[in-house]
């Protein structure tokens, strides 16, 4: 674990970050938020968001709870756990590093042959 980069999958990271920023949120809210933040470049098949939520919950990164929503509808609210925050922080850092490295690779020009 220590030698390998701790990087969560992109979609998991998006969900975690959303929950960190927005606090407790239901599945629909998370899907909407991701679409908004991505500027509608990521158009989710919204059913798949629940598979991500199950996986995150299985690993103890988030937890869920039934509650009443703003317009008094019963909904399941997800929130990030302390362990989730820790993993998010380290993962985000590594993502950034990776994207810088990848950027360098993509920026490289084809070297003239001798």
């Amino acid at each position, binding site marked *: 674990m220590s030698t390998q980069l701790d990087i969560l999958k992109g979609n998991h990271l998006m969900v975690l970050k959303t929950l960190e920023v927005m606090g407790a949120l*239901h599945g*629909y809210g998370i899907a909407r938020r991701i679409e908004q933040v991505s500027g509608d470049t990521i158009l989710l098949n919204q059913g798949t968001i629940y598979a991500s939520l199950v996986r995150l919950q299985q690993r103890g990164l988030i937890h869920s709870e039934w509650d009443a929503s703003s317009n008094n509808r019963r909904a399941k609210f997800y929130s990030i756990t302390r362990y989730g925050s820790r993993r998010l922080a380290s993962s985000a850092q590594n993502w950034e590093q990776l994207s810088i490295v990848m950027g360098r690779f993509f920026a490289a020009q084809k070297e003239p042959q001798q």
Partner: protein
Amino acid sequence: MNDSLRAFFSRLRAFFFKTSLDHDFGDELATHIELLTEENIQRGMTPEEARRAALVKLGGVEPAKQLHRDTRSLPFLDSLLQDLRYTFRTLRRDIGFTTFAILIVGLGIGASATVFSVVNTLLIRPLPFRDPTSLVWVANSPGALGLSGQTMQVGHFLDLREQNKSFSDMAAFFAFYGVGDNKLTGTGGEPERLTSVPVSQNFFSFLGVKPRLGRLFTADECKWNGPRVVLLSHGLWQRRFASDPNIVGKSLTLDDQPATVVGVLPASLDFAAIFAPGSRIDLFNPFPLTPETNRWGNTLAVVGRLKPGATAQSAQAEFTVLSKRITHDHPERNDIDASLTPLASHVSGRLRPALIVLACAVGVVMLIVCANLSNLLLARSASRQKEIAIRAALGAGKARLIRQMLTESVVLSCCGATLGLLFAFLGTRVLTHLTSVSIPLLSDVRMDFSVVGFTALIAILTGILFGLFPAFQVPSIKLHDTLKDSNRGSSQGHGHAWIRSALVVSEVALACVLVVGAGLLIRSFLRVLDLDLGFHPERAAALRVDPNSSFNTQEKRNAYFTQALHSALEIPGVEAAGLTDAVPLGHNRSWGVRGKGQVYKREEYPDGYVRIVSDGYFKAMGVPLRAGRDFTERDDMNSEKVIILNETLARFLFPGKDPIGQIVNADDPDRKVVGVVGDVHHLALEEKSGNEFYIPIRQTQDFGSVDLVVRTSLPNSELVPRLREALKPTNPTLATGTLRTMQQIVDKAASPRRFVVLLLAGFAAFALVLASLGIYAVISYSVSQRTQEIGIRMALGASAQKLQASILFQTLALAAIGILIGIASSWALARAISSLLFGVTATDPATFVGMLILLTAVAALAGYLPARRASRIDPMSALRAS
């Protein structure tokens, strides 16, 4: 790691809370759809449009639910559970098939597990001693048959123990103890003959055995004429002394003298099971390693413990050198050429080939079981084509269908295995109670975890093996045709029929191999029973009649012998009676023997098996007198020393001369040959006698025990009380519990062979039944598939006889191919069991012809029943039915 473990448990939890979680997620999705719909309405859609768009955005409710289910739980386990439920439903529907399948798998696995538990005990599991792999059996000379060749002199033992560098220690027991050597009197209860083994002081500590009560022997007790002490075996302590916890320190009356109990050995020490299979050892007493016992000649059975790093081979090299030097340094002793074998292979090495044959046989039986079930499942899957087609049409993938079929076969085999374990449990119980079978460690055979694990492994392998063919038949089912019901009648695929025929052919071939193997062993067994043993065991019985301590001079003893013989002969029904120190197939010892004046090199000095007997012994035992005379009552210490030789020894010592009247040096004095008797198979049934000679019991004191042998027409139940009554006046404390008929002794010697033969014959019979069932199933299935065709043929004028003949021909053709393959493979494999054969060759024509006739007859019978059914088909109803 932590994450995935946590995820696994979470999934496992979800597996068990399926319905509540489904419900929960249903609610969650409903909310999601409502929220999406509301948003769409706000964007200006109509409510129906909004809801439809919401569902599209979600990607459908059912796929979302399925994805959720698969992610949160263990989808594999889920569908496995489904398959299992479905399997139990279908199997319950077809109860006849299920019962039959479970029964034959049960029998097959029961046999496998039983044989495995025997193999496990004898060949795999270590001996029940401390660090058993380092134990080595040290024989006096390589390849020796008799006990004297297996054992060494006390002096040799002491020298080897002191001088060798390979062993950390060596221990020994006195190998010439006699069964029933000790008479226990007093302590409430009938006088009883017990068997005790004298052991060296370190024997038990050497093996790592700790006494259950009391202590082991002290150095003082192992001195010559030391205090008389005994250690009790656990069995005797329980049986005779009711597990008395205060037994230690008490005094017993053994052979009319007191002996103190110093300890009780643990139940885990089964000396007899390892060193003297098929007998019972009751006591142990100390054996002094002194000049006195050294004079007794080769007496010690020796075990050594290798130092770490040493091997039996490296130790052998050292012992060969040591033996040469010791032999050279001690011309006064017997020769020694120590021969080392790991103790485990000494104990069960002789049985290894037989056990391997049994294990292979049981493997063949399992293969036949698999072929048979494969066949049945194929027939079943043919009749289930429609059901399978419907499942496929409803979206079941090929992999899923194959898995379903395999699940069914594995479930069948696991149910069979459960039954098999029960059979094996009974089987091992029967084996451990076969007290008269002289196979080492047999009483230690038991079901343990390794047997259960083996059974589970076999069950799953079997299930997969017999399910494989039927399962891979599934994808070839033509969906369209099957559903339209257009492929009925005789249009069943050719490939299918081909596989089924091939399975039957292989069943017949495998059965062939087993029948030939069993046939060869049965014929060997019969040959062994037919052997002229050199004596007539039927109607002869032996009883221990050792003179008790009041007969303390040779004169008194001789008088006792004469009186005992006379009283025995006075019993009506007793035809002959004689005394011996060793009945055949029991103990043996050998002495050097030569004609007077003959000179031999030391290493070529002849020896012969010695027996101390009285007049009448040869007649009682049925040993024929070839020349000269029997001993008489007058051959005692005051008359001329005489000896009787067997034919082999007479020929060897006096080739081309009349042996009668020659002088022989055996024990110290010159002895005149007065008679020649026939050779006796006394080492083992299959072994020739070698040199034998007989010395009259009244002319020597060199015997450890006395058996009275009588030839009688009386049944045992009458003989024992009459003998007791007749001998009472001369020997009031005679223990008569140990009467053995010579037939029992011969049977015991034949018991390992009988054991193997019985098991193998059982397997062959089972294989034969399975093969015939396989043939029957295939032929009768093909008849039922061809009902319509047969109807048409009969309507067109084919006669019933012709039909019967054609079906029988089909059967016999299948059987013939199987038998041909079977003969070829048996021919090749029979050589592997040649070491187990006696008096027949591995290619014994009678066995092969017998097998041919047997299998053809069985096949014909299996084909005849469906053929007769076919010939009785009514053409009208056959045509109408389809």
